[in-house]
């Protein structure tokens, strides 16, 4: 750093100190009602006493989600934004290739009416829709829990069964394999068609793809985010048409790599 640089640096420091002083003055003028920004205290993965979550490396846990206590998450599973998996009084087990979509709450029971202590067990390749509530229940492999549904204590969703969106599966209900249950309280609606059966596993694969993209995006550091922004600005300015007209070959924007190719390129 040259002398000029040093001068500019110290000027900047002076300006920032003044800025901070102004900020403090402003806060004081506003009285005790000002909210002071703090470093985020949200813990994505939190152990309670000696219960520590065990998460496979290939799983995606959104930074905004909370995984608390005795939780086990299998390979390539995804826990999306705003989810809460709270295994404080008992354990939660999430299998592999399962997705638990946004704002879902999974909890366990310590004392319920029958005095049972029950864990929540979620199998492999399970799809759990947004805003669901799962409480001390068992959801077996390849099943589907629709958006906004609630599954209560001791209920079992058997292998390949489906709980329709917005339904409430009451205590100790068994949703048999290959059936779709709906309503509040949930009742048998019909058998699943073959098409729906195959769509279940497709959905799981799609979510594995999506999770990978989101994981890489959320893993980025502040520097990488800024670099991305700069690149986007650059791509906005230069269009392919204009470039080819001038006969220039510029660096192309990289395509996202989806290992399972379940996602098509779309608008926007």
């Amino acid at each position, binding site marked *: 750093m040259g002398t000029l640089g040093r001068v500019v640096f110290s000027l900047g420091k002076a300006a920032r100190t003044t800025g901070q002083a102004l900020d403090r003055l402003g806060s004081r003028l506003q009285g005790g009602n000002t909210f002071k*920004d703090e470093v985020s205290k949200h813990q994505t993965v*939190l*152990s309670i006493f000696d219960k520590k979550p065990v998460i496979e*490396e290939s799983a995606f846990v959104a930074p905004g989600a909370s995984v608390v206590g005795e939780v086990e998450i299998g390979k390539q599973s995804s826990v999306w934004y705003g989810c809460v998996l709270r295994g404080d009084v008992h354990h939660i087990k999430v299998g592999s290739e399962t997705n638990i979509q946004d704002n879902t709450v999974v909890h366990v029971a310590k004392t319920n009416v029958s005095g049972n202590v029950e864990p929540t067990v979620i199998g492999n390749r399970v799809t759990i829709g947004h805003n669901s509530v799962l409480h001390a229940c068992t959801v077996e492999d390849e099943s589907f829990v629709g958006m906004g549904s609630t599954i209560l204590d001791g209920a079992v969703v058997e292998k390949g069964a489906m709980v329709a969106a917005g339904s409430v599966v009451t205590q100790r209900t068994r949703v048999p394999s290959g059936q779709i249950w709906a309503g509040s309280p949930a009742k048998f609606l019909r058998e699943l068609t073959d098409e729906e059966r195959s769509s279940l596993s497709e959905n799981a694969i799609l979510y594995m793809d999506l999770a990978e993209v989101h994981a890489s995006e959320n893993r980025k550091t502040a520097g990488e985010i800024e670099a991305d922004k700069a690149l986007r600005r650059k791509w906005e300015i230069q269009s392919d048409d204009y470039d080819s007209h001038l006969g220039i070959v510029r660096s192309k924007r990289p395509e996202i790599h989806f290992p399972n190719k379940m996602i098509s390129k779309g608008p926007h």
Partner: protein
Amino acid sequence: MALRSVARNLLRQGAVAQHLSKHPGRKTYVADNHHVEWDFKGQRQIVPVGHRVPIVAVDAFVAPNVVLAGAVDVQDRATVWYGSVLRGDLNRIVVGFSSSVGDKCVLHAVSTAPTGLSAETLIGKYCTIGSFSTLRSCTVEDEAVVGQRCVLLEGSLVEMNSMLGSGSLLPPGRRVPAGELWAGNPARFVRMLTNDEIMSIPKLADGLRELAQEHAQEFLPYGTAYLEVEKLREKHLLSM
């Protein structure tokens, strides 16, 4: 602080020992350091997904703990309340002029609709979406109200000036015609809306908008959390 960290380490070692005794087959306890337990930045509000980048109008209010991912378009004067997740990673989500999306809502879109209709999640002007609702690839036209805890499935349509009662479920492809009140799981026709009720829908949206303005005033254009981060960095020599 030192005492706390010592205690914590002891607890962790205890946990390791317990884990090993529980799973005798496993030779070593693999600490999962690959998942960040705590991130000083918290959750990013705007998460671009590939070429899909969220757009938020200057006038809009988006609560600080909302997650906007992918192709989300929050238009002028729109409000997105606390804890909502708008995830347009497969298709576009539009929150129209002066509309509000309540707390803890989830808006998502599927990539393609089997019906051939648009699979985008579109919310028109002066709409009110109640808290805890879940919307997926549906269309809510101008001046409509969706109650709390509603679930709107693929391809459902809430037409202009209509209302959906709280806790109702709109199955795939169901249409709520203009000027009607529907409710239930699955949603059924309840009654026609009166003229007064229809007139009050934009007022409801405007009221929420005004409330949001008050909230928006609490937040400065740039946070000052970076000062705290700088302090932490100086204090603990953290690599951040």
